[in-house]
């Protein structure tokens, strides 16, 4: 390229006060390849831009350097002007002689010399710039939501209400997640199911939502706007189209003594079951591991009693392929299982608490089921060991949370509030009972939260003991809690009827494998990582994938719902256009020279690098090379700095451009 125009801006007096702009223009004119130079008072003004356009036309300019302010200020302005003048916008560069020169130096000669250098560097760069075209990516306006808890449901409903198609995938036989298991919710104590179940029904009735329950993500390919998702629908053994949800099969199933995991194994369910009465969809599933038919080939009662003939023992897993443009991950949390340390786990267990061996030591979610009106006890608080009403209950906070020595250092955020709620629910049901709470700090930042917490102490008479618990053991029919009260500096022992542990919130089992399928990153605890902790809290670094709820970090319901709606809004923003346009600053592989060592793939923070097979016409493999998916590439260029043969180049920042700048010194 040999016809470059250099336009030197005075910026009023901002530049010209310390930089001799005429001299800069004159010196630039001497550079090889510069066909035109001028200086002007305000290049960014309309007349300034017109000047540029006119010069392009008159002098047949092929490249433009505007020596003015920072490109962060006006690069877009001048690139648009260049485009209007018929020059590819990426052949227009700015030389920053204001922020980096005139404003920071006083000596006119030195500043002028530096400005000339800066312009020279940019001229050399522009000579090697390539015409780039913006990359457009078509957008499939259909969203995939992974997880049917409150987060997934909220996102699904928001997106569906905006008129876009949604596919909701849930691992369990019913949507609802943890919120469906809760009794009442803080800080208002309204019944969780009463506010949750209508939303669940909305999902199943929504014309824009396709619901896959009892299903898991098998594989995800593609990139923003264009994901192909394989969903494995596990064999339900019941034909959803035929089933009316009458429930006769469940009533007649002879196998009735299977612990119900929805009730934290406090109650029982049959082998053909729905997890809870308000399940959505209300279609039963056969638990093949426990079903007599599947174990022995005999029984078949459910099939015989099913009027519509919906029970189908021959059903197999089915793979459904969905094309979607965006993914919302809402896989939620699980409670830290605090038994002895599992082999290979980085997180220590709490064997000394006897959880799992002392029946009257339970976790918070079990207490929710005890307190729930639709739970296994009909809302009566009883001890699992003997069904007696506990007269003293000890609640222990921060079990696993904020316990660096045990391997988890974060705060689980919801335990202070739900423990306060538990003491209230307990007091409401057992009037002569006494609740004790061992706590480290009470963290109650939320609307109405602190008031709620104080109520549990002041009105419901829960005794809060600041200190930790060291050991629990069974003594007769009591559970002895050995702990400390750090306020008065003594060791305390309480003989309790029931102990409730507020165990840490952890990401769902398998969160890491799902992340690997999606190509998103996660922290050492397997919580998914957002793109920016402050400014992009619902987006993944991988474009087109968004986060909602506790899969990203411990969250209460209001926060989860907010994030879910925010994620939905991000999806809708993406779906507002038919095509996605992005800056063409992406890496490209020179397939001729690439030797396929894939060092680029190892360093790519976006997972944009794939393997590509190069074959000859008869299909024989010639070699394997790297391929950068331009839809996914973020444009950092780490691949190029890593590539030993420089067979991958970042457009807009090629080695040639940069070397030219360095050599122009």
């Amino acid at each position: 390229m040999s016809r470059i125009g250099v336009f030197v801006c005075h910026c009023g007096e901002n530049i010209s006060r310390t930089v001799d702009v005429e001299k800069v223009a004159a010196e630039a004119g001497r550079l090889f390849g510069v066909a035109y130079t001028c200086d002007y008072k305000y290049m960014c003004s309309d007349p300034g831009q017109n000047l540029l356009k006119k010069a392009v036309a008159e002098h047949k300019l092929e490249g433009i350097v505007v020596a003015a302010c920072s490109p962060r200020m006006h690069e877009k302005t001048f690139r648009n002007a260049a485009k209007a003048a018929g020059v590819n916008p990426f052949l227009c560069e700015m030389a920053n002689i204001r922020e980096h020169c005139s404003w920071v130096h006083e000596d006119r000669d030195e500043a002028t010399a530096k400005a000339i250098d800066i312009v020279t560097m940019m001229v050399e760069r522009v000579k090697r710039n390539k015409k780039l075209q913006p990359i457009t990516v078509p957008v499939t306006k259909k969203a995939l939501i992974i997880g049917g808890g409150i987060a997934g449901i909220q996102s699904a409903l928001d997106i569906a209400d905006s008129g876009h198609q949604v596919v909701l995938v849930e691992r369990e036989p019913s949507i609802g997640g943890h919120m469906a298991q809760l009794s009442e919710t803080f800080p208002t104590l309204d019944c969780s199911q009463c506010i949750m179940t209508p939303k669940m029904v909305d999902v199943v009735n929504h014309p824009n939502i396709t619901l896959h329950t009892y299903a898991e993500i098998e594989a995800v390919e593609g990139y923003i706007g264009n994901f192909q998702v394989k969903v494995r629908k596990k064999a339900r053994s019941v034909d959803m189209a035929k089933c009316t949800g009458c429930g006769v099969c469940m009533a007649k199933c002879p196998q009735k003594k299977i612990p119900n995991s929805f009730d934290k194994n406090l109650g029982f369910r049959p082998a053909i079951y729905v997890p809870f009465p308000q399940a959505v969809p209300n279609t039963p599933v056969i638990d093949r591991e426990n079903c007599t038919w599947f174990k022995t080939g005999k029984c078949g009662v459910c099939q015989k009693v099913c009027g519509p003939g919906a029970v189908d023992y021959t059903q197999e897993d089915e793979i459904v392929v969905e094309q979607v443009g965006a993914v919302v991950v809402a896989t939620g949390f699980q409670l830290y299982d605090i038994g002895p340390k599992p082999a290979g786990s980085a997180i220590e267990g709490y064997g000394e608490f006897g959880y799992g061996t002392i029946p009257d030591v339970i976790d918070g979610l079990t207490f929710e089921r005890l307190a729930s009106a639709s739970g296994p006890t009909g809302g009566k608080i009883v001890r699992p060991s003997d069904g007696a009403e506990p007269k003293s209950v000890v609640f222990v906070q921060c079990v696993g949370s904020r316990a660096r020595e045990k391997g988890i250092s974060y705060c689980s955020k919801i335990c202070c509030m739900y423990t306060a709620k538990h003491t209230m629910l307990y007091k409401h049901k057992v009037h002569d009972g006494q609740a004790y709470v061992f706590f480290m700090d009470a963290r109650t930042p939320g609307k109405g939260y602190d008031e709620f917490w104080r109520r549990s102490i002041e009105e419901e008479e829960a005794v809060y003991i600041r200190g930790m618990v060291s050991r629990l053991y069974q003594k007769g029919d009591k559970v002895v809690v050995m702990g400390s009260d750090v306020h008065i500096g003594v060791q305390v022992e309480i003989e309790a009827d029931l102990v409730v542990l507020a165990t840490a919130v952890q990401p769902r089992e398998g969160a890491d494998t799902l992340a690997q399928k999606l190509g998103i990153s996660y922290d050492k605890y397997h919580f998914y990582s957002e793109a920016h902790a402050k400014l992009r809290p619902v987006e993944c670094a991988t474009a087109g994938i968004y986060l909602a709820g506790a899969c990203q970090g411990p969250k209460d319901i209001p926060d989860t719902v907010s994030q879910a709606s925010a994620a939905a809004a991000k999806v809708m923003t993406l779906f507002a256009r038919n095509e996605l346009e992005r800056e063409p600053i992406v890496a490209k592989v020179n397939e001729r020279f690439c030797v396929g060592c894939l060092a680029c793939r190892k360093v790519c923070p976006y997972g944009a690098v794939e393997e590509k097979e190069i074959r000859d016409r008869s299909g024989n493999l010639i070699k394997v090379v790297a391929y950068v998916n331009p839809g996914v590439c973020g444009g950092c260029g780490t691949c190029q700095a890593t590539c030993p043969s420089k067979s991958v180049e970042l457009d807009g920042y090629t080695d040639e451009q940069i070397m030219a700048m360095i050599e122009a010194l």
Partner: protein
Amino acid sequence: MNKTARKYESAALADEGYWTSVSQAIRQEAVRLLEQGAVAGVVGYIAGRRTGTAMPVVAATPDQAKELIFSPACVNNLALYLTKAKKEVRAKGKLAIVAKGCDLRALAGLLGESQLKREDVYIIGIACAGVYGAHADRSQPLCDATIARKCRECTVREPTDTDLVAGTLPALPALEPLEAQELARLEAMTPQERWAFWKEHFSRCIRCLACRQICPFCFCEQCLCDRNRPQSVETTPRPAGNTAWHIVRAMHLAGRCGGCAECERVCPMDIPLNLLNRKMAKELKELYDYEAGLTPQEKGPLTEYKEDDDESFIK
């Protein structure tokens, strides 16, 4: 370099039986593989025309395989023959390869860098007592005076992750770590002295690029240093370009080099190139606890990171 100050022992490090038994084990396995058609060729060594020499060969028939040997003259890193740089070898099909610890480290690197699939290669590992140094008097047996510098400090004599191990290692005496001493000597110098040291060496470089051609890790089809748009490294053999070439080379091998020191062996100008590689390996071990080993590693020290990596040098 005080080459004269020290008296070297000339007692053989391993008896003749060791070399014969390794050679036999290789031959036997190579013949078996070729007869069964399990591989298309065996990359190994045969005796050279002159005594005390050996050269790499791809044995394609059982008869050729009967010629295979292992001796202190088997200096070449055979992993080179499985790289893309040697397309004609790879084109033959599945190959077996005779591999000393050095070669194994290179193979592990090639596996880690997707240049090779483990199932495509049958590895005959050698329990290796060492090989001759570049200027060894080959009329002598392998001994303190003739063993290569790298072998004096070898940590990979016993192969692992191979399909077969040929030979058993004789008991070897500890040898003086000359290279480590030389490295320590350089590290103790002032920057000016080191610059002078390398300047003298690099100035003599004739840019024959033998160091590149022999290196199993220089498998790029187009070397960065041959490029001229942009020209990152001057191609003419002048001191400036030479220095740049050797710096770039060391940097490109950092975290990958298997330490076979072939670059140094083939250098016609006797530039101590392996010192650069050793230094980088040492630093990466200290910084990131990374060591090139016999097992392929998913990522090298410069293609991964930890959030709490050292940054004491950054303000």
